[in-house]
């Protein structure tokens, strides 16, 4: 068993999954709070296009994925300034389908190997290179530091952006910062879990944490813990049962969501029972 830790690809995967497990679920909480679900679909597809362009040019697909994702972030930020970001479903659908169409044209017309294209959709954490892992670790650290240092401005913007602005906070700058973090995270996530399963490292731990209805700080902390647990246990399951890593992480993350919902339900029921008993006395 210990031999497995000697394999560089394995340790690189572990580091990337740990770092993204800690930091990316915070992005999931931001996505949910800012109602950016359709937006993150658009960003996901645009960063997939970026990765495909990177492959076509023989460059690092992750770098291009991030560049395209950040560009998407600024587009979204611009839409948001006009008050239409969170309800821009039509525009996002157009962006998604167009990006996907161009991606397949690029794959068809260039010499991109099928396995490389496949990795973009499904991810291959064991194929991560050293520089890519370093980038994941640095970005994860920046997300954590940014979230810790600016926790109050971030929570104020998530709670009510208009009121935060009215009280003198540079709410647009904070909102743009959050969006850029989300977009960079999605761009990086493509290489780790693949475009179709970025939610595994962002949204699922956040959904699980939110379903326990704790306060904002506890939700962030819990999302991080669940993110690490999902990533690492999903990876362990994948190795033990010869499964693809990303789907294994998704299944574990989904089970975490169900477990948290069940725990909340049981807690509520117990509180209700206690209340009913105290009423009887």
């Amino acid at each position, binding site marked *: 068993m210990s031999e497995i830790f000697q394999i560089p690809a394995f340790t690189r995967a572990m580091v990337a999954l740990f770092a993204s497990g800690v930091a990316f679920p915070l992005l999931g909480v931001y996505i949910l709070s800012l109602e950016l679900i359709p937006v993150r679909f658009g960003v996901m597809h645009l960063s997939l296009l970026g990765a495909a362009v990177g492959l076509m040019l023989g460059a690092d697909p992750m770098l291009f994925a991030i560049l395209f994702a950040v560009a998407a972030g600024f587009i979204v930020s611009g839409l948001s300034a006009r008050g239409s970001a969170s309800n821009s479903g039509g525009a996002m659908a157009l962006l998604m389908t167009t990006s996907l169409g161009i991606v397949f044209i690029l794959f068809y017309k260039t010499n991109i190997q099928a396995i490389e294209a496949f990795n973009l959709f499904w991810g291959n954490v064991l194929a991560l290179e050293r520089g890519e892992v370093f980038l994941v670790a640095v970005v994860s650290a920046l997300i954590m530091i940014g979230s810790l240092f600016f926790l109050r401005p971030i929570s104020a913007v998530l709670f009510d952006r208009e009121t935060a602005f009215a009280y*003198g906070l540079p709410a647009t700058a904070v909102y743009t910062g959050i969006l850029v973090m989300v977009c960079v995270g999605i761009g990086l996530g493509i290489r780790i879990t693949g475009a179709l399963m970025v939610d595994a490292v962002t949204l699922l731990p956040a959904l699980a944490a939110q379903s326990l209805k704790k306060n904002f700080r506890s939700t962030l902390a819990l999302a991080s813990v669940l993110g690490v647990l999902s990533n690492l246990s999903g990876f362990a399951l994948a190795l033990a049962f010869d499964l693809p890593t990303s789907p294994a992480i998704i299944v574990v993350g989904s089970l975490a969501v169900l477990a948290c919902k069940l725990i909340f339900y049981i807690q509520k029921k117990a509180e209700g029972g206690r209340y009913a008993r105290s009423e009887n006395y």
Partner: protein
Amino acid sequence: MRPAQPLAAAPGAQSILRAENLAIGYRRAAPVVRGMRVNYSPPDTWGRVLGFVGPNGAGKTTLLKTCLGLLQPLEGSLRLLDTDTRHSSFASVRARLAYIPQNRPEGNAGQLRISVWEAVSFGRLGRSGFTGRLHRADREAIDAAIAYCGLESLAGSAVQDLSGGQFQRVSIARAMAAEPRLYLFDEPGSYLDQAGQDAVRKLIASLAESGAPIILVTHDRTLMELCDSFLFFENGKAALLDAKEWHAPREGYGS
């Protein structure tokens, strides 16, 4: 009861609100009000209450949002506390305004579980630096505002678990924590039951007694009684009236 810290009017301010040929509204839409010329400069700003009144859609909330810099004037200029809302220096004025919105935030954002204390602390955002770090003076102002609004027992509760009336009191406490130079209320008491409306009305009345100038968007007749001047919106125009002028010809207006 008075606020722990006196809420003084703008020192040296000559005018609370001044509009010159102002057109307001949303971009890519026809102006809601145009050609507004108003100079609300009472000789003594202490405890002054200006009511924005008029039918729905006449531009009351639109002007309030323009006052806060949330919307830009479409034409002309708007000065609040002697500062043009489009000027870069308005950011420092905005940090001393207190906005009390009509509703609680909606959707997922409104589900963000933060405590009453944290929600009130957002009133200090304009003063507490880039990272929002709170100092002792900030904490004292927050505690005083919570106590003034009778929210001590709820300070640790999540705002999502509060009733509409309690939430409005949180909004007012947040405004007080800002130690503002001007309060801006957007239809306080809307959607509240009678008890909630009465509690909010009492709080606004005591704020007015404490001296802070107030701008109040309202349809509520009992809140109108607190106002000493009115900005009446109708048919794309707005006119400044004193209390006597307002009450005489429009007996049927307000609920």
